[in-house]
């Protein structure tokens, strides 16, 4: 087991209990804590990749974590290029991590 949330019970700073937020990631439901980023909810399930690159088809995930590197871009409710580390999840958000990949053949077709 890799990336995961620290259980509130074992946390020295004693966070309050809170409500949950449920999103879908490529169609699969994922539940997090209200106030979490989209990246945080995906990573809490030990999934680190958030997209594949257009040119090299390589996996990428959170790198800088503070909105500077733009490596964690996902599609949220049909809107592309949203930084998953910066955007707080809202109930029902539909996340698509394959948009770069989906777009590649189209982009090539357009250029040809």
């Amino acid at each position, binding site marked *: 087991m890799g990336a995961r949330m620290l259980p509130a019970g074992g946390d020295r700073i004693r966070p309050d209990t809170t409500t949950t937020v449920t999103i879908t990631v490529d169609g699969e439901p994922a539940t997090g804590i209200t106030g979490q980023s989209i990246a945080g909810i995906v990573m809490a399930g030990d999934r680190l990749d958030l997209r594949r690159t257009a040119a090299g088809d390589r996996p990428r995930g959170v790198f*800088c*974590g503070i909105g500077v590197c733009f490596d964690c871009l996902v599609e949220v409710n049909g809107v592309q290029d949203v930084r998953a580390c910066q955007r707080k999840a809202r109930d029902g958000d539909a996340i698509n991590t394959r948009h770069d990949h989906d777009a590649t053949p189209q982009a090539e077709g357009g250029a040809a």
Partner: protein
Amino acid sequence: MRNVVIIGAGPAGLAAAHSARIAGSNVVLLDSSDALGGQFWRHLPDTRPSRNEKLLHHGWAKFQKLTVSLESDELVRIVRGAQVWAIDTLDGVNVHAIIGEPDGTQRTHEMFAPDALILATGAHDRTLPFPGWDLPGVFTGGAAQSLAKGERLAVGERVIVAGAGPFLLPVAQSLVRAGSRVVGVLEANRFSQLVRGWSPKPWQLFGAASKGGELAGYVAGHVRHRIPYRLGHAVIAAHGTDRVDSVTTARVEANWQPIAGTEQKVQVDAVCVSHSFTPRLELAIAAGCELTSERFVKVDDRQRTSTQGVFAAGEITGIGGVDLALAEGEIAGRHAAGTESAPTSAKRRRRIFAGFARRIEAAHGIRPGWTGWLEDSTVICRCEEVTLGAIRTTAQRTESESLRSLKLSTRAGLGICQGRMCGRSVEQILCSFAPEGALRDDTSSDHRPIASPLRLGELASRPRPTMQGKEHHD
């Protein structure tokens, strides 16, 4: 009454806002995040407050005092989710912001035309490229901090922390407190380098005793958790197919060149690497502020930049930590509000902690031998996936010693992050190819025409001007 706009609500910006209010100005405080505190005081969101947040922070009481005072003040407007994308100086200083959910489509424009502007935009980690650094599971120290403090999420089970500088220690501590096992902290500089950096004029350190105490706390934390702290070592590669499963570490020379035969493979599921910090200069450059030879914003003893009406405070004037940022913010706030003098205590703290900052740089600064751990297949520009081999080939073919032509022909540094991650590394790589060891043009990777990416539709919609300087404030 004067109007002061402050960009950035980290320690420097908060101190500046508080100080400008004491001096009687109206204050608008802009921050791209939806919480105050910046990266240093990153904390759980208001929807999930913790009862003992202070355990994770230095100076938490100071943060609370500043925020309570600002949030309860009617003459302070705090604008969260405000991404400043441009500053122009066509007629006074105009600040263009877009406000709303990060990268959303429903954001609103607002333009501010204050009497004085204080830039407190801070810094982000600078991580040097190494083979495999683009794999999921490789993070900057700042990412590990931000997820641990802001969400109570551990980025991995077995984590290695590497790079240079005292910031590695709080990163390791945050990881441990979020439940990770830190298998080692590798500092690239050697003991002799640290001693050379730290030892001239040791008496100056006494003035910075609180800082010494902060560092001692981290060292004690290391002992308690039995985390090995290795000097003169670096992570030189990360391995894995879809995520990191191991790293190669090596001993490095004083100039950070890896020493052949000292490589060791270490199994980890996450690696956090930071070698330095890069100041967030784009807005200062847009405002026409002159930079120092070390590429920070140049300020005078009143924290004034070279642009009339624009002040700067915190990490964009030099990497100096929270105490220096607070002192600079306090001084900048007072002068931006039109006061002739700043508090003596703030000036004294600025003097002490500026000395501390210079010594951190001398002890922990990046050394040029790091390019020795690169391979031709190593991705340098993460956005455009440009490898060292591609940069080398292009540089040789075109006999290029110009950053501009290299960027245009390889696209290195031209991706969506606009060279924030790789810009300075590309410059250093190109310098290492050049016979004179220097670039022929005076382009720098710090220049960005638009300070943060916008959608075209957003650029087309008209800004709503507010706070027109002295004449029509509310």
